């Protein structure tokens, strides 16, 4: 795996989907089945969404170019079922390195997840299939390329019982308590071991519980999971998000502790409404700052974290263009005992969202 250079976002996507070969077969099969289903509402046409982007990354003087495509399919069946899937397609153009001039070229195609959701009520949703593990928040909520503020994901993003970031099995999730002043969400999952190239997963289980205070727009959560194969290891996580009401300020943070390493990240981003609103020329500018540190607890490396204690500060400046297009730029300085280096990144991402086929007229 490439280290935290070109977005752990993309690196992480690899980690999520270390399965090559013909990954779109599953989506195409699901798509074909769904095409035969009768949809009762004119608003329930299956959708295709996702992001397409082009990224550059200059890490310690070496510049790489990375076109990326992440399509997502969501299709409701009846009143209680949703089938959804996301895939990743990346191309890599990277310098050969050393004294060898020129660039080498490689690509990656893989399923990120493919799951079916049965919505019994707001308290119980049963998820079956290949799902993103809800450990902390980045994996299942922030990893899509059209959502991330910074091209690189956090260093601790794949610190979990499954380095692939996905599980194969079942999950129960929902809202445990809903009150006017607070709500508590939960998830519990079990994953079987799988060596299938499309659905690689480790055997383990875990869960997440989070408390949300709507008046304060404050979310706090705890995560836990346990590897149930080989050496059984525990992983602990905690997250705090704060997004003050009527502002476009967001503060997100996570802490994760594994058997051999731990770390945290804190990210803040802001858009001002003071100069004509969020859709003004100024309001579309989005400065981002992220601070993160990782610490090794021992020298046994069984996770994706750096081999030595590492500190990193990212300074991003994004621009939110009309029509779901974002420009992402960032500079990062990474400090460790093996050497300090700069990481410059730029990218442009377009998010698309349209019906999978022509539905009934309303």
């Amino acid at each position, binding site marked *: 795996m490439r280290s935290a250079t070109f977005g752990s976002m993309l690196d992480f996507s690899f980690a999520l989907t270390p399965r090559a070969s013909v990954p779109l077969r599953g989506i195409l099969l699901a798509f074909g089945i769904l095409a035969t289903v009768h949809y009762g509402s004119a608003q*329930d*046409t299956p959708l295709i969404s996702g992001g397409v982007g082009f990224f550059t990354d200059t890490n310690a003087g070496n510049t790489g170019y990375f076109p990326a495509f992440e399509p997502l399919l969501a299709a409701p069946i009846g009143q209680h079922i949703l089938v959804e899937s996301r895939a990743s397609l990346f191309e890599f153009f990277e310098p050969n390195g050393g004294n060898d001039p020129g660039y080498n070229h490689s690509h990656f195609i893989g399923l990120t997840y493919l799951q079916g959701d049965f919505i019994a009520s707001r308290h119980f949703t049963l998820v079956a299939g290949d799902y993103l593990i809800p450990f902390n928040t980045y994996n299942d909520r922030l990893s899509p390329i059209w959502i991330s503020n910074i091209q690189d994901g956090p260093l601790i993003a794949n610190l979990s019982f499954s380095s692939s970031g996905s599980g194969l099995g079942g999950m129960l999730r929902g809202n445990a308590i809903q009150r006017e002043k607070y709500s508590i969400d939960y998830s519990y999952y079990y994953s079987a071991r799988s060596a299938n190239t499309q659905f690689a997963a480790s055997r383990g289980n875990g869960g997440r519980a989070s408390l949300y205070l709507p008046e304060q727009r404050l979310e706090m959560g705890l995560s836990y999971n346990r590897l149930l194969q080989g050496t059984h290891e525990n992983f602990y996580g905690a997250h705090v998000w704060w997004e003050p009401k009527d502002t476009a300020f967001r503060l997100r943070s996570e802490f994760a502790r594994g058997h051999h390493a731990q770390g945290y990240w804190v990210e803040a981003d802001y858009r001002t409404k003071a100069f004509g609103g969020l859709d003004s020329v100024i309001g579309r500018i989005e400065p981002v700052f992220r601070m993160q540190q990782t610490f090794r607890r021992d020298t046994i490396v069984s996770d994706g974290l750096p081999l030595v204690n590492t*500190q990193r500060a990212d300074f991003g400046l994004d621009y939110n263009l009309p029509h779901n297009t974002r420009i992402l730029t960032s500079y990062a300085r990474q400090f460790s005992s093996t050497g300090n280096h700069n990481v410059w990144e730029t990218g442009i991402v377009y998010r698309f969202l349209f019906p999978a086929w022509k539905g009934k007229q309303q």
Partner: protein
Amino acid sequence: MNLKHFVSMALVVALVSAMAVTAQQSGGLQAKPYKDPVRKQAVEKQDDGERVFQQHCSRCHTAPDGFSPRISGTVVRHMRVRASLSQHEEEELLHFFNP
């Protein structure tokens, strides 16, 4: 945690606090009162849908810049799974997308 870690954490807290204070000072959109009861009800329903969107969907992402009404139900169903919405909230959100 050594002095270097403490200083870096202090810088993070200071920067984040400054951004938060600036954000809160520049925020504050207030809804205008409506005298017509029918319009008031429609606006309140729209406001409820907007509240659901603000409290659940926009925690992770901004609103898409428009999409076909033919997929609004699917978008809302997707969010219902992600954000554990109730059926009532799903309907409010659907109304917000299709006023």
